[in-house]
């Protein structure tokens, strides 16, 4: 079996079961054929949100069959070959129901190329080989400096990174007098540090590493001069392992109204709107709260206000959150209104909704002039709840 980019045609087929996405197969019930030149034929059966792949001699009964050579097939599946170009140039063909075959694209997660494990030596080679490509010349204006790395242990070595005239060169020796030298007893710690597995301060504090010379150059300037090293193995997390667990956290709660809010809600049942009044500043609170926030005194005296009033502000909502109490999405648009009920002044407003078909007719008063006069529309069966008022409507 031939390999393309280190991958066999069989690898693609053998991993299909693992890469299968049932959610992508909801409206697919069909048998597909694959005819790969010099490799063989495979039959894919998709039914009831599950699948079977088998090697076969005959592709009869397939609703659509794809034909390609091994290189094209592996290339398309791994993203090495552009699928559209390959199709247009005739490198792969589909016979039968092409629309349905197009749906096979969402049946599978991406094929991820497994990588070899990298040793400390591999990493060091890769890290220093990529120093020059990661260099950001624009940040090195007027800079003449050298960074030396003296890494011990069995896999260790010496490197110097020179920066001069906005160019970056790397040697595998330490020469002359570097601007700053970073010494690690064990090169493995350096690799782990660069990969973010251990933190610099712990290694320094433990005496496993030291920086000599212009330490600030290493600590502050290096991260600006070079793009961060990208771990070539970091792509190893396959998409199949990045799961999202859907859970609903449901915590039942009871909320005591206490006597203050209780009086207000009971009032609604009787078609009355009560505010409470601060005995010190005389301010009304609507709905009532236990304590006047401004004066920090108990506000226990009730005053009946409204029920009619004028609109101060209205906000028209087009993108509604679901009603938190029922989970049902509200019909949009709707108008949230701040009403200054008769008997109230200043900011003593009550919040509610305006009748839907009257949104266009509302004049807002802001804090400057009189707004549209409104009155509450009461629910027939009232239960001491904020929806005992269905909404407010224009008082004509």
């Amino acid at each position, binding site marked *: 079996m031939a390999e393309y980019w280190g991958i066999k045609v069989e690898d693609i087929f053998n991993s299909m079961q693992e890469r299968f996405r049932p959610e992508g197969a909801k409206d697919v019930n069909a048998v597909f054929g694959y005819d790969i030149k010099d490799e063989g034929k495979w039959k894919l059966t998709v039914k009831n949100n599950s699948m079977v792949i088998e090697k076969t001699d005959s592709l009869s009964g397939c609703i659509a069959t794809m034909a390609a050579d091994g290189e094209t097939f592996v290339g398309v599946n791994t993203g090495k070959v552009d699928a559209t170009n390959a199709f247009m140039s005739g490198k792969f063909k589909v016979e039968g129901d092409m629309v349905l075959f197009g749906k096979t694209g969402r049946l599978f997660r991406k094929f991820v190329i497994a990588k070899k494990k990298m040793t400390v030596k591999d990493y060091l080679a890769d890290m220093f080989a990529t120093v020059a490509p990661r260099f950001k010349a624009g940040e090195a204006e007027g800079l003449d400096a050298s960074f030396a790395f003296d890494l011990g242990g069995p896999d260790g070595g010496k490197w110097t990174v020179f920066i001069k005239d906005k160019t970056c060169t790397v040697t595998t020796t330490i020469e002359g007098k570097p601007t700053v030298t970073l010494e690690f007893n064990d090169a493995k710690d350096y690799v782990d540090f660069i990969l973010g597995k251990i933190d610099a301060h712990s290694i320094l504090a433990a005496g496993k590493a030291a920086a000599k010379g212009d330490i600030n150059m290493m600590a502050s300037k290096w991260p600006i001069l070079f793009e961060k090293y990208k771990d070539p193995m970091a792509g190893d997390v396959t998409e199949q392992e990045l799961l999202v667990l859907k859970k609903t956290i449901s*915590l039942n709660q*009871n909320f*005591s109204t*206490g006597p203050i809010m209780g009086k207000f809600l009971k009032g609604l049942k009787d078609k009355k709107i009560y505010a409470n009044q601060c005995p010190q500043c005389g301010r009304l609170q609507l709905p009532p709260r236990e304590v006047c926030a401004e004066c920090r005194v108990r506000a226990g005296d009730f005053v009946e206000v409204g029920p009619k009033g004028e609109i101060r502000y209205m906000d028209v909502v087009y993108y509604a959150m679901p009603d938190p109490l029922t989970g049902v999405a509200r019909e949009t648009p709707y108008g949230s209104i701040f009403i200054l009920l008769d008997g109230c002044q200043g900011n003593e407003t009550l919040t509610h909704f305006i009748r839907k078909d009257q949104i266009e007719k509302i004049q807002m008063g802001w804090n400057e002039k009189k707004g549209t006069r409104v009155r509450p529309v009461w629910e027939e069966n009232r239960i001491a709840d904020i929806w005992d008022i269905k909404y407010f409507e224009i008082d004509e």
Partner: protein
Amino acid sequence: MDRTAVIGVGMTKIEKNKVRETFADMMWEAVNKALDDAGMTIDDIDNVVTTSSDFWDGRTISCMAVGDASGAAHKNVSCVEGDGAYGAFYGMTRSLSGSYKTTLVTGHSKGSQSVSSLITNSAFDPIYERGLGMDMITACAMQASSYMHRTKATPEQLAMVSVKNHGNALKNPLAQLPMKITVRDVLESEMIADPLHKLDCSPISDGCAAVIIAHESVAAKFKQKPVWIKGVSICADSFFFGDRDLSRARSLTEAARKAYAMAGIKDPKKEIDFVELYDAFTYQELMWLEEMGLVDDAMAGKLLEKGEFDMDGRLPVNASGGLLSGHPVIAAGLYSMAAVVRQIRGDAGGFQVKNAKTGLVHGLNGLGGQSHCVFILDKDK
């Protein structure tokens, strides 16, 4: 370092269900009691630290529910989520900061309004452990078993903690469950999660507490005798439940050691006069005492039998009745702190202990005490 002192305390009665009162109502009562106790008005308070839990309160930014009543309007207010002792720690640091001289620290909760087991279950990681149905009680039952296995503490000894603390609560008018019960009553009460019977567990409670912490420069300015914070430390253990030796509380040992050192205490067994600690379950009183080095390892049960932790014993523990007699989660650590303050001032009334000069306050957070807070309070600066 500069010193701080607790100069006022106030608490509501702890009750099973304060259906007549909202958070604001409870807060109003506790804060006013603390202000009266200190001889202060709200204008003498420089800043406020509230302590609350969004899950328990059933609302996010749960400190907002008590903003007006705590007098936080127009002041710097910040919230700590966790036990009240942690709120007190933060409050203390604010009074030490130089920006504020006096800090009002509050803690409120109403266990009656929610389902505690669901909330403590939510403390577990959502991907693996939560689904196993662990909650505070089952987690602590496992800890109780491992503690009893290691120390050979007996179910009878655990039961005696319950008998003692419910008995102490008879002298504390704020306690929810003052009860004269026997070891047999405890052992015959319903088994909740082996080895914990119903009477080994603290109840669901509503309550609110407030303390006022002042910098030394103003501590004597007001009416009350200052009770000095001599030592304090918070230490956390690893988070994952299975990472810990459950029969031990390393973080408590460490927190206590640091608090003793800060307070200049060399021999805590001799120098600590009495303790209010976090007895959410009976075994915890024995275990925490040992882990804090206040008694020898694995000896707490035997010393309890000898009456050493009684109100008139060598080292009175939870003379207030402790949390077994009323456990408003979150506020709990502040109730313990207030109890110690009152003992040191000689104001503890019916549950006053003798020679109360140096007292220890203990609060905790997390499952089976994942993190611990220890305060050493003293009559002398």
